[in-house]
């Protein structure tokens, strides 16, 4: 299989690069080891589009965060992504922390962040009545926003696919191929070799290992776990925006936010670990999150919790992104170590990567504009958010939209069918693309229903359906099957 460029990893970084490069006449392959998108740090994070005041001038984080924020505000309409343009507050509890807000304000202004303002605690409580009475001031960033991260990654990938890119799921990159001059020739995977003169490393928490395949040992990834609580939408409006506490050495600290879909959420911790795949929550981590949540929002309604989860982010020793073209071997590009504000930065990183390819790898790859590029992409209809008129019109066109599958999130059969048409193969993929199972009963009622639809539409037996690919089958066999086995013994 011959391509112009191979992107390893279809998290938000890889997806944004794929979509950006699909603006050019290129044959693009995107590889991801997961059965569904997103799967790594892009799946489990704060879903924040940051203002851009957190990082020091001169860093790559600052270079890409502010323009990334602007790009998302545009992409949200182009790609039909649900974004809550709510702004964010950094909360200060004493004079020392007010000093910190002032520093952040100054830094933000230098970084070109628009609209920053320090407001009093009382002014904050006018907007967010449920925050602690002990908060004395807050830094308001109006351009900050909260994005549906599942939709965002799928929207970018779908847009890239509309424009010719190819996505290969369950395809684990295992090494690089080199030509006789020791330059990049492609990628080896569990599904065979993929040939291309340019390989982009968007491997997230694995990007350090992948860089080593190219002989690049200049950076090391420190997998850093972040744990979260996610509450039911009945808590909608308890908090309307994104609340930070003042950062400590450990990171930006525990935050409280309302997701783009109206769920109250709190997290993350920042625990360094060796295993990049360990996404388990811990009693200590969850206790830390709850404590932090209650500090900001004393009546944080934890009794409405529907799930806990953890993500592993790709921290680097330098604390900054690792982006650039290797001198040797030629053809290898790092978009590595992308962590907060990585989601925000990704569209700007993607534009920068395209520039790098033009400037530094023109001998290997030609970026000729694709005149047929289609920028727009439509999301699967969001039945829950439609007016009665819109619903009626949709049902007239396709009656499967009148059949509710998920009661908690009002997801219809029509939406599930559309998700399957767009490539969903697992219960989790359907959940991320439609929200079926994301509500208060966590799939108790709809999981069997979604499994039946997957089985019917894909023409595979019900007991072959998986939760999230791999060995995650929902069912292990037919009733009484094991009785027969026992009888044979």
């Amino acid at each position, binding site marked *: 299989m011959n391509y112009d460029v191979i992107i390893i990893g279809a998290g938000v970084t890889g997806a944004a690069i794929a979509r950006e490069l699909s603006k050019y006449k290129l044959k693009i392959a995107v590889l991801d080891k997961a059965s569904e998108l997103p799967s790594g740090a892009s799946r489990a994070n704060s879903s924040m589009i940051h203002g851009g005041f957190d990082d020091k001038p001169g860093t790559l984080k600052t270079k890409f965060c502010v323009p990334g924020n602007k790009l998302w505000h545009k992409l949200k309409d182009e790609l039909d992504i649900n974004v809550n343009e709510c702004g964010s507050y950094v909360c200060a509890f004493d004079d020392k922390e007010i000093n910190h807000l002032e520093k952040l304000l100054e830094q933000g202004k230098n970084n070109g962040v628009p609209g920053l303002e320090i407001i009093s605690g009382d002014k904050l409580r006018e907007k967010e009545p449920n925050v602690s009475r002990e908060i004395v001031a807050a830094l308001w960033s109006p351009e900050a926003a909260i994005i549906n991260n599942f939709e965002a990654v799928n929207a970018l990938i779908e847009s890239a696919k509309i424009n010719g890119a190819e996505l290969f799921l369950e395809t684990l990159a295992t090494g690089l191929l080199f030509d006789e001059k020791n330059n990049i020739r492609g990628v080896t995977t569990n599904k065979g070799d993929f040939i291309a003169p340019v390989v982009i490393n968007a491997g997230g928490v694995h990007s350090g290992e992948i860089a080593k395949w190219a002989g690049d040992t200049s950076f090391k990834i420190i997998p850093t776990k972040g744990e979260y609580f996610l509450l039911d939408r*009945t808590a909608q409006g308890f908090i309307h925006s994104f609340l930070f506490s003042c950062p400590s050495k450990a990171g930006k600290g525990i935050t409280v936010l309302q997701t783009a879909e109206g769920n109250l959420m709190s997290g993350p911790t920042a625990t360094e670990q060796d295993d990049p795949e360990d996404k388990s929550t811990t009693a200590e981590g969850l206790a830390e999150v709850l404590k932090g949540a209650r500090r900001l929002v004393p009546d944080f309604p934890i009794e409405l919790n529907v799930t806990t989860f953890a993500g592993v982010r790709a921290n680097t020793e330098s604390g900054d992104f690792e982006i650039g073209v290797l001198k040797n071997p030629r053809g290898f590009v790092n978009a590595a170590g992308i962590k907060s504000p990585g989601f925000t930065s990704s569209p700007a990183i993607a534009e920068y990567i395209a520039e790098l390819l033009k400037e530094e790898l023109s001998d290997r790859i030609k970026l000729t504009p694709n005149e047929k590029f289609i920028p727009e992409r439509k999301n699967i209809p969001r039945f829950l958010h439609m007016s009665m008129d819109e619903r009626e019109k949709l049902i007239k066109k396709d009656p499967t939209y009148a059949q509710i599958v998920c009661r908690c999130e009002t997801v219809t059969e029509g939406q599930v069918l559309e998700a399957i048409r767009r490539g969903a193969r697992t219960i989790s993929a359907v959940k991320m693309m439609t929200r079926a199972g994301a509500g208060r009963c966590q799939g*108790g009622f709809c999981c*069997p229903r979604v499994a039946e639809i997957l089985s019917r539409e894909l023409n595979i037996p019900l007991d072959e359906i998986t939760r999230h690919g791999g060995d995650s089958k*929902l*069912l292990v066999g037919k009733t009484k099957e094991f009785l027969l086995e*026992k009888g044979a013994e």
Partner: protein
Amino acid sequence: MGNNKNIDVLIIGAGPAGVAAGIGAKKEGAENVVVLERDWDLGGILQQCIHTGFGLRIFREELTGPEYMHRFITEAREAGVEFRADTMVFKIDKENNSVWTMNKERGIECLNPKSIVLAMGCRERPLGAIHIPGTRPSGIYTAGTAKHFVNKEGCMPGKRVVILGSDNIGLIMARRMILEGAEVEGVYEMMSWPGGLRRNIAQCLDDYGIPLHLKMTVTKIHGADRLEGVTVAEVDDNMTPIKGTERFIECDTLLLAIGLIPENELSKMAGIEIDPVTGGPVVNDLLQTSNPAVFAAGNVVIVYDLVDKVSDEGLIAGANAAKFVAGKISPDIKKIPVKGGQNVRLFSPQFITGEKDAIIYLRVTHPIERACKVTAEPGLYTQRLRYARPGEMNEARIKASAIKANPNLKEITIDIQPM
């Protein structure tokens, strides 16, 4: 297809409460009675309850869930109740009680019934409710979801099972999994008493040699794709796991039987007052909610142990909804508040009218393993009990005559205390 104009009683949910409400409304003379059901078949959760034990009181027979419902549905159909399956209610307008429904054939409709009976039942508490640390592999189900897979799809969710929580669905599923060829390692219950009925402990656990571990819980979930095991530990009196008591159990399935929650999203949308303790609407003994045109019955009000009781309550709610339509329920009906005593965890109804003999259903906070009595003061009811357990619903029966004889009655206090 039925007529949407002049619906007298609109019932939401065709489980045991809703179907009985349809019969009750018809018996009381309501003309146009419609029951809406979101699932494709009628009968609610009882359709997947293929074990016997239903209808012992009403039919004096041990029926399966589908058999029990079949009898009620047949009676309702013969009485002229109209059923609409595959019909989702997604909104009730606070202002005018308009009910918005959706169905593949009928599309979106706005119904304006003269009265409504809420009979949506309850749902199971999910894993998130108790935030157990660990991974999120496949193989973790609420007992009811597992029941659906086994009883309706003929598929096994796993081979080696641990059950967390001891509510009735969990106990029933422990037995079912054994009968279908799985192993059940044990049932773990955080409290020092089981959540389900004594008869289910005997018939579903003891008879099959499944151990019930009280004051224990699952403290960690292991496995990336498929569940590989759980860590269990003993808990102290504050429900905190005790260090050093942890034990790893290899299993591929964890079933959750950690309680039921009345499903009241629609009730809340309709602006109906909810009792924060039961999680269901505040009702009087006519099962009338804070909105006089809206009635409620069954597990949507308070979670029952026995379906017979749910059917009884459905009949009452349906009949009173019909009476309301006929103008036979006065807007200034008497409402004597009920108060729970020291050992009452929850109860329903919250008000007594004295119009008819009434039953107050109540559960104790702490078990009493010796002779005790349930009382309704002042002097309205006393009944001796051999024991009282949180897992089993008790009753206080209030005679209408006793209420009428006491015109100055301000409050009724119910309690269960040792003799």
